[in-house]
């Protein structure tokens, strides 16, 4: 996930470049998918007010109604009023909004941004007539982002376009939610938490970046499509009616309203699907080309059927999957809604169709390519800080492959081979792919995965099945999870291990156990704690030296030993976790009261059985809140540097270090220079006063080199962090756990942090992920990095993240694929949880030329030759770039 298009070399999470240059085995999508992709590339992100308008209108009408019913009616009205739009050539219909890349704000979560920007938006709307067509040309920048207002389109958040005539609607709708949104209500009550002021100080100093409850209250979780696949919409409605009959008038009456709410919501979805079916019939009636006409009619027939009944074919099942995926996205601001192990969920249908000859491999591939385009079209309109700071339009719909079946044998199948193939032929950002690596997976499948990784899209990521199982059993056993059930897991969102369940899909009188998510959102709770900043605040006894404001009361340590620094850091870190857990729990409580999940609740076992929504712990597993960290390698390297330079070799006193940090080691700050990478930093006139301490800080042992001195610090931190998170309890009264993905926060969090004792300069970006080395500091090659990365047990954490860049020369050809697989396998066997690769293409090599320190460890491999890319010299680099580009042809 990456936000800043300028720095897309800092890949982490699941970020593939948007316009990908494939390098080896380049293949083309089918003409149908290619046309759809071209259309996508030409389309801008757009906001439509349809859904929020009708949602709010209905909500207003039902003042005084029982909250969950009011919510259901509002959702129903929203779905019913979405204008259906079908594009020629589509095999899968439906989308979030009436525009191709449409999305919309959800002011019931947070309206604050619109209220704050009211004047500006009105002004721009009035100015809009004066904007000339010239400005339109600037919109090309940034892919589909609408970065500037032009013509009759207003730019919102530098990303979305909104038609001028909808601006007043947006503001009017937003106004209705003032003091009623999850944000406003949560804020009112979070202030009741003792020590609340400290929370505000933490947010101001950007030790923590985001609130949780109203920003992206759902997501980072795995979908479950079992109920609609098995029972169809009408079947679920019948189940709910039976539920009502069972509970009406009995204690725990909330179940009654839940069932009623699900029925209302499903009626809305049913109408939404029917509207699409009607649109398809209309389009067929005016279509002149016979082939397209037939396709519209077939689509109408499929949609009409699944608007009430369970799917009959692979194609229909895929349409059901997609329709409910979008339906969930439309009920909340969500990122990281992962479809899960799609190839295993749909396999029974596909196998049957293959057997009876109603589909072949070519047709399947085309459908899977169309699915990729559909997932790529998803846009997310979350609250502003999140759109800009975390997502950057990425929605992280992680599709998982591999893993094990319920009985513990390899779960991969032929359909998954086709999903990988579609990932190669149709290389779009979504859905991103992850392989749940297990020793039991067949070699052919793994090598197919390697083939896909090699095209340079960044997917599939490689994730360790066994480590995940150990994590799940460790954290969900108290909720009844056993090994067999743990095997149903998948990655939710970017890299969040998420619990699943096996569901008995009955098809032709045979039971197929299909995996699906069975827990609410993860990566809710405490969002992203800035580790290097916390160390900085500890070194300055509670002060944020950037703002001059106090964050914490004095910790009282004299910091005369390394151990005292470590203790002071731990004290502050714990304080931050404490207050943020409590305030975020309150926000989530406001969320579940005002905006309870209905679509997702209906899908997730065992909400329907229990008659409870997700917020009432209707899910089978509920231990999903976590505490997220950012800047691990910089924290560990900084501790290492202090330990060596202040306490072991006594090169400097701590006071001298403080002065050096405040002086930014004699460099201008990143804010002054406008660049956030170490290489571009400009020395001040007196940098010579600091160059020795800076050099010794840079030379202190760094994580990623198999150096015991610093790796022990890493292990101390991880062991302590992973354990201490269990001391905090979520809204659902479950222990929390550690989540270690930086997403894109290492940029903004680095920006507010002074120079750190590891030699990193003020304002510059942190290392990404949690076991990635700081760029340029891993100098002993991948095996040393692997040893460092696995110095602690990754199963203690929800995840760990290792990003590597590989030069194409290393993995070229058939032998290259095999050796690449050995590299991946070796790391995972050692206990690494996740590794992903950027097979650098010429674009990235060019950036490496401009910014060599970030690519310090990128090796160019030719027989018998040893050299790092950055040391090749410009002339040679140019040659290699030219050659790389040639090879792409």
């Amino acid at each position, binding site marked *: 996930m990456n936000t800043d298009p300028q720095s897309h070399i800092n890949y982490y999470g699941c970020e593939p470049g948007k316009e990908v240059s494939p390098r080896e085995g380049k293949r083309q999508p089918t003409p149908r998918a290619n046309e759809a992709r071209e259309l996508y590339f030409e389309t801008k992100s757009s906001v439509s007010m349809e859904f929020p308008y009708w949602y709010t209108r209905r909500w207003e009408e039902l003042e005084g109604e029982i909250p969950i019913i009011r919510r259901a009616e509002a959702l129903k009205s929203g779905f019913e009023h979405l204008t259906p739009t079908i594009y020629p050539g589509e095999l899968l219909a439906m989308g979030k909004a009436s525009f191709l890349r449409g999305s919309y704000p959800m002011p019931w979560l947070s309206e604050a941004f619109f209220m704050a920007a009211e004047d500006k938006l009105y002004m721009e709307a009035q100015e809009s007539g004066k904007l000339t067509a010239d400005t339109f040309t600037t919109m090309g920048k940034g892919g589909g982002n609408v970065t500037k207002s032009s013509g009759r389109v207003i730019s919102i958040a530098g990303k979305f376009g909104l038609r001028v005539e909808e601006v007043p609607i947006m503001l009017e709708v937003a106004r209705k939610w003032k003091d009623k949104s999850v944000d406003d209500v949560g804020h009112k009550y979070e202030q009741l938490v003792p020590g609340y002021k400290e929370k505000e100080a933490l947010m101001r100093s950007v030790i923590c970046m985001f609130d949780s409850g109203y920003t992206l209250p759902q997501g980072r979780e795995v979908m479950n499509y079992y109920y609609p696949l098995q029972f169809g919409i009408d079947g679920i409605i019948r189940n709910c009616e039976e539920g009502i009959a069972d509970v009406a008038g009995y204690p725990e009456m909330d179940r009654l309203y839940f069932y009623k709410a699900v029925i209302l919501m499903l009626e809305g979805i049913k109408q939404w699907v029917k509207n699409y079916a009607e649109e398809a019939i209309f389009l067929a009636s005016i279509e002149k080309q016979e082939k397209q006409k037939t396709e519209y009619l077939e689509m109408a027939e499929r949609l009409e059927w699944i608007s009430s009944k369970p799917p009959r074919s692979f194609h229909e099942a895929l349409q059901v999957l997609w329709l409910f995926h979008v339906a969930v996205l439309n009920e909340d601001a969500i990122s990281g809604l992962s479809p899960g192990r799609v190839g295993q969920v749909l396999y029974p249908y596909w196998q049957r169709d293959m057997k009876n000859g109603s589909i072949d491999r070519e047709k399947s591939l085309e459908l899977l390519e169309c699915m990729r385009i559909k997932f790529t079209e998803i846009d997310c309109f979350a609250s502003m800080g999140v759109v800009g700071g975390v997502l950057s339009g990425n929605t992280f719909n992680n599709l998982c492959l591999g893993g094990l079946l319920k009985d513990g044998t390899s779960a991969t199948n032929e359909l998954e081979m086709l999903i990988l193939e579609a990932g190669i032929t149709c290389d779009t950002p979504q859905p991103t792919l992850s392989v749940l690596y297990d020793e039991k997976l067949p070699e052919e499948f793994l090598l197919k995965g390697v083939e896909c990784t090699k095209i340079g899209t960044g997917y599939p990521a490689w994730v360790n099945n066994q480590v995940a199982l150990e994590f799940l059993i460790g954290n969900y056993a108290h909720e009844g999870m056993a090994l067999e059930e743990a095997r149903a897991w998948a990655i939710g969102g970017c890299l969040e291990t998420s619990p699943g369940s096996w569901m008995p899909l009955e098809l032709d009188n045979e039971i197929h156990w299909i995996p699906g998510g069975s827990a609410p959102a993860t990566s809710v709770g405490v969002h992203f704690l800035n580790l290097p900043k916390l160390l900085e605040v500890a070194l300055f006894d509670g002060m944020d030296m950037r703002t001059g404001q106090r964050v914490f009361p004095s910790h009282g340590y004299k910091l005369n030993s390394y151990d005292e620094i470590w203790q002071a850091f731990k004290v502050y870190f714990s304080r931050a976790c404490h207050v943020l857990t409590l305030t975020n729990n309150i926000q989530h409580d406001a969320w579940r009261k005002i905006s309870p999940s209905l679509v997702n609740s209906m899908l997730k076992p065992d909400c329907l059985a229990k008659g409870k929504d997700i917020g009432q712990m209707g899910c089978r597993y509920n231990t999903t809140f976590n505490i997220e960290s950012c800047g691990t390698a910089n924290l560990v390297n900084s501790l290492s540097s202090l330990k060596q330079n202040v306490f072991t070799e006594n090169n400097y006193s701590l006071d001298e270090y403080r002065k050096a940090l405040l002086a930014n080691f004699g460099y201008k700050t990143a804010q002054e220079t406008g660049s956030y990478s170490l290489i571009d930093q400009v020395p001040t006139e007196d940098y010579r006063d600091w160059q020795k301490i800076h050099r010794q800080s840079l030379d202190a042992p760094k994580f990623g080199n198999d150096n015991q001195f610093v790796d022990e610090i890493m292990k101390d931190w991880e062991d302590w962090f992973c354990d201490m998170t269990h001391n905090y309890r979520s809204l659902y009264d479950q222990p929390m756990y550690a989540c270690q993905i930086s997403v894109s926060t290492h940029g903004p969090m680095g920006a507010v942090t002074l120079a750190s004792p590891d030699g990193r300069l003020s304002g510059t970006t942190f290392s990404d992920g949690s076991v990635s080395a700081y760029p340029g500091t891993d100098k002993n090659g991948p095996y040393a990095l692997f040893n460092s990365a696995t110095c602690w047990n990754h199963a203690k954490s929800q995840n760990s993240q290792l990003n590597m860049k590989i030069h194409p020369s290393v993995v070229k050809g058939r032998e290259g694929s095999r050796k690449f697989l050995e590299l991946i396998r070796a790391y995972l066997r050692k206990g690494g949880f996740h590794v992903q690769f950027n097979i650098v293409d010429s674009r990235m090599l060019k950036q490496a030329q401009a910014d060599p320190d970030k690519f310090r460890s990128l090796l160019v491999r030719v027989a018998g030759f040893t050299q790092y890319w950055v040391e*090749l010299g410009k002339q040679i680099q140019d040659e290699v770039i030219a050659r790389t580009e040639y090879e792409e042809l």
Partner: protein
Amino acid sequence: MVQTKLAKGHLFDIQGFSVHDGPGCRTLIFFKGCSLACAWCSNPEGISFFPEPLYRNSKCTFDGLCMKSCPHGAISISRNEQNNTLTFDRGTCAKCTTYDCAKACCSGALNIAGFEISIEDLYATINRDRQYWGPGGGITLTGGEPFTQPEFAYNLLKRCFEAYIHTAIETCGNVPWKNYEKALPYIDWIFFDLKTFNESSFHNLTISQSHHSTHSPISLILENARRIAKEFQGRLIFRLPVIPGFNDDKGNISEMARFILSTGRNEVNLLPLHHLGREKYNLLGKKYQASDYNIPAKDELQEIADQFASFGITCYTGSETPF
């Protein structure tokens, strides 16, 4: 030749996850010092037996810290308005054992190529890497010429071989037979470099510091090749750097092919010339002598491969090998 102490080896790099110098994923051990000095060498820091400063002008701030730190006065800076230049008395540097200059440097412009390492420390790294190689992997001794440090090479190979590690070497052949003799039973795989059969061009381009002036290097190399082919039980693959205009003529290739067949072996690996090492010459303050040679074209390589094939020799081109 420098005869290193039994205990320590003199290397300039250890490189894990190397994929082109032997089967599987390997750790390459680059020995410092070579008995040839080929003009096209892509690892020029491996030629000298002595530690050498690697100096990157573009990073230098000319603050003089290195100059002040050098106890031998081997560094000088000349300053003028256009540009500053820093020069080393590299003869003096070769005798250095303390490298104060690199320690004093604050700009990252100065590093030292070459370090000493004990068998124990090197083996610890190999043992670490071993868990990541996967099936078929191992170590490859390269350089430089590993058998200019025969005791260290022998001790290392024996230690690894006895620990069931797959051992490979890459050698230029230009060392006395006795340097190989003891080590041969502990080697699984040999890359043996052949360059040319033309005495004079060989001499012009590969010799600057031959240590066996009484022998012709070519005859020594070929004799070693024959004996290895005969006495060595493992896989022997000849390697031929393809330098257009130097050794790619049909006559040389035929002679090469006939020679290979005469040894009773039949595999050759073409290594097309590349200029990736050029920057390293700058860092060493040396002139790169092979700039004028073109990188061989694809079809030219194919022709050579076909020629070998016509002799019944299996020919692999570049990294396109089945191992």
